[in-house]
């Protein structure tokens, strides 16, 4: 029963959004008394409620998985504890600053927790990318074949063409850089995007028809 409920609801949800997106609102020409999308707002709201519920489920899941790790003292439990404490503190302070009346709590949340800690930790994580790119460029861009040489040359022109120095060296650098980006890199990326989207379509159809081997097929077990 559970298995069939999941299959039926998945199919109905999929076909509704397919119809709502691709077909015109009034299917019969000249008739305006019936709209496919008449209840679109209500249905979309219902799906958003499911999104909200999924956030709640995510929180419960974090407590189950990492709480178990802490209680059992399993390997890495201090990290799990830090995660739970961090989540609780941010949640309480965030809700309090939103709905409470204390400016001190708002300031604590905004200035200390968000701007002081989360902001800097996030920036630090992303800035690591610069170091990895520098290390990878040094190790990878070696002229050991014609293809590698071409790739290195393109990378250098793009790098220099984007910075002020390139413009100072020659006004052609940004032009060549833009040509490489638009005429060489973009077709490659577009081909990759096409590939990804075709694969997504295939996966979506399989999920829509419940052909994917997963919980839906296993009846939730």
């Amino acid at each position, binding site marked *: 029963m559970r298995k069939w409920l999941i299959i039926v609801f998945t199919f109905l949800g999929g076909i509704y959004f397919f119809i709502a997106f691709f077909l015109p609102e009034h299917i019969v020409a000249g008739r305006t008394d019936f709209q496919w999308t008449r209840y679109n707002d209500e249905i979309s709201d219902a799906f*958003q409620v499911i*999104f909200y519920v999924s956030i709640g489920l995510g929180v419960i899941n974090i407590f189950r998985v990492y709480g178990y790790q802490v209680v059992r003292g399993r390997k890495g439990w201090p990290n799990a504890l830090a995660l739970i404490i961090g989540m609780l503190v941010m949640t309480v302070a965030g809700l309090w600053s939103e709905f409470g009346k204390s400016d001190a709590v708002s300031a604590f949340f905004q200035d200390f927790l968000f701007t002081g800690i989360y902001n800097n930790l996030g*920036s630090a994580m*992303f800035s690591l990318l610069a170091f990895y790119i*520098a290390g990878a460029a040094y190790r990878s861009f070696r002229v050991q074949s014609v293809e590698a040489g071409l790739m290195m040359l393109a990378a250098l022109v793009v790098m220099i063409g984007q*910075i002020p*120095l390139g*413009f100072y060296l020659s006004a052609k650098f940004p032009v060549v850089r833009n040509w490489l980006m638009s005429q060489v890199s973009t077709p490659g990326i577009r081909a990759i995007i096409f590939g990804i989207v075709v694969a997504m379509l295939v996966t979506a159809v399989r999920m829509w028809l419940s052909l994917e081997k997963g919980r839906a097929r296993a009846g939730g077990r």
Partner: protein
Amino acid sequence: MPAEPAPKPFWLLSIDRRVVYLFLLVALTTPLVVQKFTSHLTMKPAPLPSARKLFDRIEQIAKERDEAVRPFREKRRPELEAKLAESDDLKKVTDPAKRQADLNTAVEKALAEEVRAARLWNKIVILGSEVEPQTRGELYPQAEAVIRHLMMRRIPFAVMTLTAPGVGYTRAIPDKVARELGRDYGKDWANFGYQVGGSLRLQQMGKNIPATLKEDVNRTPVEKVPCMQGIKDAGDVPLVIEISGLVGTLGSWINYFASEKSRPDMANGCTAVSVTDSFAYLESKQIVGLLEGIAGAAAYNEFLAEIREPDQPYPSAGPRNHMTSQTVAHVLIVLFVALGNLGVILAALARRRKGAGP
């Protein structure tokens, strides 16, 4: 017979990655520190055509608006000048030049109010701002530059975010620029904070903006926010600017934000690592402009400096300074790549000499 020891890798080919990281750290931070003491180290950013396209599109919107309200302004200006010239405040000013300047300012302000009230140009630009702590370094200056442009030209805009960590920035960035330029919340911009629901939300918004957004972050109903009055659907939006380091958000706007009859122009601001993805949309003309990382923000600020009124502050020098820092870092990377390749050549020559034998 003992085995021959493995050849020692040539040192130019095996520089420790920590050495590379250390050099890069110095290259990035030194210009930033030096710039605190002198402004001579900054370099003019490269003019990026993709950023210019976005700038030109916003200028075009300003022109369209001005054309739409020109007859009304031309009709009302003499009446307002005559009326305001009689005000007590202006009569007190004795210097004729200052008096004329004050009168012009007062007339422009009154005209702006009347134009807004008459709803002669009922449009709003939407700014999707997914500026997060992780991408703050690149996307904050981009959002600031675009918001500055919109505020300089008094083009009303609505800002919102599709990610929870972006909420603080949707408030902080417009507030900062508005303080500098003397703009008012509600009249010049509206903030709708975090919008949950991703593409479904955008699809609903495209069909009916007030019913989907309902209220701004101050819990004011959309209908009562002055710049949102009369805005119905995506047809009333000439441009959506999506500033994001996330994969898929730009695609969601392009795919889903449309009314039955029209689709607004789209533009994008992205991090440097995702430029290649966004370029595909630019080449296919699905977006009309693109800000590429901090370089895009720096180039945009140069364009803003060209149209700045004498009484308006200069755009932030931050992106230009960061570009100088990035220049040094890029040069360092080029040097390391050159060293690596020099190592390849020297190692090959050494192998050849060894192969030739004594």
